[in-house]
């Protein structure tokens, strides 16, 4: 089976405008959750989020481009540009461009465009939408805009499975690469739904924390929305070596599963199946996993169910495998989460250091795991796992290994 490696990384998150900034602040244990500033949130019950600080779209795109790019597509475009640049993909070569895929995940797509459009239509009495409204709000716009900007002509599409969207995009990229259909894939996820209506809708679920996200601890009281994008360039090892590209890690395996249980209530069986499938695909035993970047949303139920699932899959090793949730720092980026947290895994492998779960107060006896709390922990890491368990019971688990030569 072809080996799949990571040759490019890009991100735009509340922890910084690129991957190096993200990795640095992640390992410092910085929490980017803050009061919402993008709009007046005073009427909301939930007034905090992990926003990209200081982001002004005019700083990055001209007026013409902005009429076609919703915020989620802007984030995706910028992260993709960084990853493509780092990988130095030879996309000017038409043959290479045809054998390159773009697969981006997003849960909400052009939410801001929809919301602003409906406000104009229903509240302000506007009689027409801007002609680019449809191409701007569709979930696939980010993939097609990256394709247009970088002249990528292979398979290009978007996956959508709520909080596992990016996990599914990355998994599908691996399948395309292993099948021999493409040699490179620009993949990850993007999300930008910190809007008045979205936050109000999330309030209805009664899963939101009012101040901070504290996964796995006794005082946890919910999740905090984040935003941003993360993009990886995946390549077959043959392709990367043939062009002398730097290899940052290996994507050793993935697992996908569905709980087939409940639209919002997580179930142990689905996450167990996803993690087991990932281990099997990577040809690793549970004991060979050194660190799990958990889904760890900080809701009472998720963290409980994820703990039970890890205990079931890892058995006795569940007490030794290190676990943390970086969502406590960059928020829950929903459709981008699996990609953002893949980058956290890559940073962990590169620095041989585990990013912490910050804001952690007291241990919850029901979340009896080897949690890395409040401060990054240095330890040797060879293989790490990244979990994403979405509403609707849609699960992905990815395994990355340190780059071997």
């Amino acid at each position, binding site marked *: 089976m072809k080996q799949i490696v990571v040759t490019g990384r890009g991100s735009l998150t509340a922890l910084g405008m690129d991957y190096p900034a993200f990795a640095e602040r992640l390992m410092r244990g910085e929490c980017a959750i803050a009061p919402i500033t993008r709009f007046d949130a005073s009427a909301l019950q939930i007034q905090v989020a992990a926003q990209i600080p200081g982001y002004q779209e005019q700083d990055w795109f001209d007026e*013409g481009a902005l*009429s*076609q790019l919703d915020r989620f597509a802007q984030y995706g475009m910028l992260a993709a540009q960084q990853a493509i640049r780092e990988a130095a993909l030879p996309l000017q070569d038409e043959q290479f461009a045809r054998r390159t895929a773009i697969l981006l995940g997003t849960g909400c797509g052009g939410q801001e465009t929809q919301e602003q459009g409906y406000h104009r239509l229903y509240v302000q009495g506007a*009689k*027409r939408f*801007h*002609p*680019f409204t449809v191409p701007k709000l569709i979930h696939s716009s980010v993939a097609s805009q990256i394709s247009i900007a970088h002249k990528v002509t292979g398979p290009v599409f978007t996956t959508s499975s709520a909080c596992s969207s990016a996990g599914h995009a990355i998994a599908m990229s691996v399948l395309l690469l292993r099948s021999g259909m493409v040699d490179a894939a620009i993949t990850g996820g993007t999300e930008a739904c910190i809007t008045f209506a979205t936050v109000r809708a999330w309030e209805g679920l009664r899963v939101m924390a009012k101040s901070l996200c504290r996964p796995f601890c006794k005082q946890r009281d919910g999740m905090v929305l984040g935003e941003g994008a993360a993009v990886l360039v995946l390549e077959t090892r043959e392709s990367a070596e043939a062009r002398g590209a730097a290899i940052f890690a290996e994507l050793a395996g993935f697992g996908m599963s569905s709980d087939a249980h409940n639209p919002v209530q997580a179930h142990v069986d689905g996450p167990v199946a996803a993690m087991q499938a990932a281990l099997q695909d990577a040809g690793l035993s549970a004991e060979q996993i050194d660190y799990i970047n958990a889904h760890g949303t900080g809701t009472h139920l998720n963290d409980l169910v994820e703990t039970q699932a890890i205990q079931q899959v890892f058995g006795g090793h569940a007490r030794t495998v290190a676990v943390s949730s970086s969502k406590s720092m960059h928020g829950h980026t929903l459709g981008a989460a699996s990609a953002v947290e893949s980058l956290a895994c890559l940073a962990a492998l590169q620095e041989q250091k585990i990013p912490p779960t910050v804001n952690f107060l007291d241990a919850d006896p029901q979340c009896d795991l080897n949690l890395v709390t409040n401060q990054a922990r240095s330890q040797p890491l060879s293989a790490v796992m990244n979990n994403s368990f979405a509403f609707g019971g849609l699960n992905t688990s990815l395994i990355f290994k340190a780059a071997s030569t």
Partner: protein
Amino acid sequence: MSELIHESVLDIFCKYATLRREEMTLETSLLAAGMDSLDAVEILFALEERFDITIPNPASVTEATVGDVVNLVSKLVAEKEASPSA
């Protein structure tokens, strides 16, 4: 009214054209003024918003001239004003 429409059309064109306002005559096409099909879509929308009209599906907007656009907008504005609901 036609003079006002002419001025408004030029105001909107100037946002997208590479030619200066005084370089555009009634015979200048959008293409010749340096505008592409994406600019044309923005211009149609701006005209619709400015005059509260609906411009029907255009065949080849970039080949249209300043004069064509002024005439079309004048016609649609006149039709709107003549309609009973106006």
